[in-house]
């Protein structure tokens, strides 16, 4: 099979990248491992999607549906569902699907596979491994797609968004959510989710607290939990027992970069290092969405993917403009990462996407090139759990750009 752009992953990022690549003029193959397009959105049945992109409040399946009908109507996009990408080697994409193993030759490849969830193994959760330890995403799939109840007495480890959403969902289904434990001193989820998923239902959230040990042979029977010190080590004197039958893990996401293991990645995000065009160190390989960095808004994923899809398409068509000097963009004081990791010298605006290291109240975010201030943004209240956007004029920058909290 031959095409111009292969987009891998049929979630919001992949669908938007494919639509945009097609609109820019390329023939596109969109590869999705599951039976239907939509990705994780299909199981996110809660509302809160689309306000920025569609100016309308939608649920996950509705948001996905809007793009799916556009993709299906687009004659330049060939969709392969139930198809897994097993290898990418120099613009050749090996797939495994209804015809067994096949190969697609392309001019550009867009990675849009999102993240996988961190598991009990990734966090070295102590205790036994009975039924009842599930990641929030699996819990969500079982409840919302399969219609199965995962447990009756729930404890949630980690305050990631899907964990918070599942706290509410399971409560509405009649389960008792006893507590959410967060090992850090701030939540990794959105503040609105703490309010409408926990506070609305009187579910307690304990900071600096974690599960010491899971107990149970065939089924979870309870957890020992307690506080941790500054180095996240358990403080044994605070150890308590809580009876429960289910532990839901919402302890972070890992970009699915294993498919392109030799790509240069960022230590903080785990995603690829990309330039303004969402291009990795391999010029034909582009990335967007959660595989690049974890977004808190799918609307932002859509916008980012449209950009990446456009540039991938232009590259495939040989129309991506050759660029001037590349200026590195660096995360400075108080900032954990900034995207893109480099910009091209020249005129015009560039939008940075970044996350803060700690909570920030009433401070300025600045972008500097040496002593030259390229832009400033007032941050009323910023937390690490929420992504910030920051647009600057790059005129005048001729060297490394540092983005930091003043």
């Amino acid at each position: 099979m031959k095409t111009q752009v292969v987009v891998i992953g049929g979630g919001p990022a992949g669908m938007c990248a494919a639509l945009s690549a097609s609109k820019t003029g390329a023939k596109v193959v969109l590869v999705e491992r599951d039976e239907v397009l939509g990705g994780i959105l299909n199981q996110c049945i809660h509302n809160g999607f689309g306000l920025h992109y569609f100016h309308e409040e939608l649920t996950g399946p509705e948001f996905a549906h809007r793009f799916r009908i556009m993709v299906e109507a687009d004659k330049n996009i060939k969709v392969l569902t139930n198809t897994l990408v097993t290898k990418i080697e120099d613009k050749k994409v090996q797939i495994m699907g209804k015809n067994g193993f096949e190969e697609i030759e392309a001019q550009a490849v867009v990675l849009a596979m999102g993240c996988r969830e961190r598991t009990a193994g990734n966090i070295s959760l102590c205790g036994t491994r009975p039924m009842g330890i599930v990641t929030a995403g699996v819990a969500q799939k079982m409840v919302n797609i399969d219609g199965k109840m995962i447990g009756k007495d729930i404890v949630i480890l980690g305050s990631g968004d899907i964990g918070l959403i599942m706290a509410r969902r399971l409560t509405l289904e009649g389960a008792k959510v006893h507590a959410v434990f967060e090992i850090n001193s701030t939540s990794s989820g959105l503040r609105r989710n703490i309010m409408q998923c926990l506070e609305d239902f009187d579910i307690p959230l304990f900071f600096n607290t974690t599960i010491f040990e899971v107990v149970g042979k065939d089924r979870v029977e309870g957890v020992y939990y307690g506080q941790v010190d500054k180095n996240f080590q358990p403080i044994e004197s605070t150890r308590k027992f809580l009876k429960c039958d289910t532990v839901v893990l919402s302890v972070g996401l890992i970009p699915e970069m294993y498919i392109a293991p030799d790509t240069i990645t960022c230590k903080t995000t785990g995603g690829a290092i990309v330039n303004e065009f969402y291009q990795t160190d391999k010029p034909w390989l582009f990335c967007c969405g959660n595989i690049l960095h974890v977004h808190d808004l799918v609307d932002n994923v859509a916008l980012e993917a449209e950009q990446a899809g456009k540039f991938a398409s232009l590259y495939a068509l040989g129309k991506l403009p050759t660029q001037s000097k590349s200026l590195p963009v660096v995360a400075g004081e108080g900032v954990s990462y900034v995207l893109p990791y480099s910009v091209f010298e020249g005129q015009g605006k560039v939008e940075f996407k970044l996350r803060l290291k700690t909570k920030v109240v009433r401070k300025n975010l600045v972008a500097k090139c040496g002593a030259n201030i390229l832009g400033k943004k007032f941050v009323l209240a910023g937390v690490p759990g929420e992504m910030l956007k920051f647009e600057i004029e790059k005129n005048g920058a001729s060297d490394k750009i540092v983005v930091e909290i003043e």
Partner: protein
Amino acid sequence: MKIFDCVVIGGGVVGAAIFNKIVRLGKSCVLLDKASDVATGASKANSGIVHAGYDPKPGTLKAKLNVRGAKLFPQICKRLGVKLNCCGALVVGDDKEKILELYNRGLQNKVKVEIWDKKKLHEKVPKLNANLNVALWAEDSKTVSPYLFTIGLVEEGMINGGKVLLEADISAISKDGDVFKIETQRGMIYSKSVVNSAGAGYNQIARLLGSETKKIQLRRGEYFVFDKNTLDVPCTIFPLPTDLGKGVLLTPTVDGNFLVGPTSAPSDDVTAVTKTGLDEIRQKAHLLMPDIDFRNTIRQFSGIRTICGDDFVIEKSRKVPGVVNLAGICSPGLSSAPAIAEMVINLLGYSTKEKDNLKKIQPYVMFKNMSKRQQKEILKTDPSFGQIVCKCEKITKGDILAVLKRPLKIKSVDAIKRRTNAGMGRCQGGFCFTKVVKAIAQERKIEYKNVLKENRGSFVAVGDIREEE
């Protein structure tokens, strides 16, 4: 009333090897296990190493059976279609005397061993700690999937007439003349002899039999599992052994993952991982290889070893004629299993001649490992081989359904995982868990919520949403 020649209690690797051997002799045999699958105890949670046999004290059963067992392994694995990774093993240290001692033991046990100097050692394992300057090389050391090996032995026994009862808890055993009457949850079994290979449950069965109970110590071994391509470990690497065992080792598995462990701590029969245990592994593993990045671990597990004195206990019961006792089969139990089986049939007084026309077992071959032609053929008749279930290990729905159609009727997600690797990869079932559950429900014609994770009581869901009251 059918009277079997022999009942083997305990479907671990040792019980499976004995069951397999007895069936191959043309005797009638039943294998009983209380779990929902075979190999769910120590046999699923160990290092998976077929030791060459340089380590056990010469003259012991451990030495004799290990060396003999390791010799039998390749031909049995070939017969069963079970993969062996002939990676070899190194014992590394900074004390030449101790390595020499092991070397001499190896020679006494008639095992191929070599002493390597620092240069040769670091050429083979460049990431090794620089202060390790001498090693023992045992080229015949191998790794195997201990559960696939066990399953293979059991299934080969089944297609040749052996009977397996799972979830068969035993409530009573009595003896009427020369015939044992064994009451199980799956019905009454009559048999002329009984082999107690119940592992950690040895004493419980011994009490029911009225045979000798033993002083058994349980020790827990904890491990880390590493993702593929995340360690530069070309062969099994041991530290110098101590009184507590072979120590924290690094080893490649047959699937391309790596195990780091085990610890050895007194324990009850609970397979938990502990902070102390995991911290100990981290610290000891770093002594072997300083730059191991434990963020690449995808799982931890622990297994229970049973220890009964310094050597294996394999004997005819003096109290109850017709009973064979096996106790304290710890390391090198996996390596010795085929030789233990030979010894047990001898104790049972069977001749060693195998029956003619033994049936050959169909090995487990996943779609991804089939030839291009086989793949094309199978897709023509069965499109489920074109449906992805596990993305990390590239397992299809067809692979899962094929496993469910095999002689041993398993019904748990973990049983599928052991046979196909689905759910064993880096996402640990995040993508495939519900797909595997659905495949099991479909093939076994049971409800989704009644599918098990492993044993009875581990139902994957507690109910349906909007269940009828």
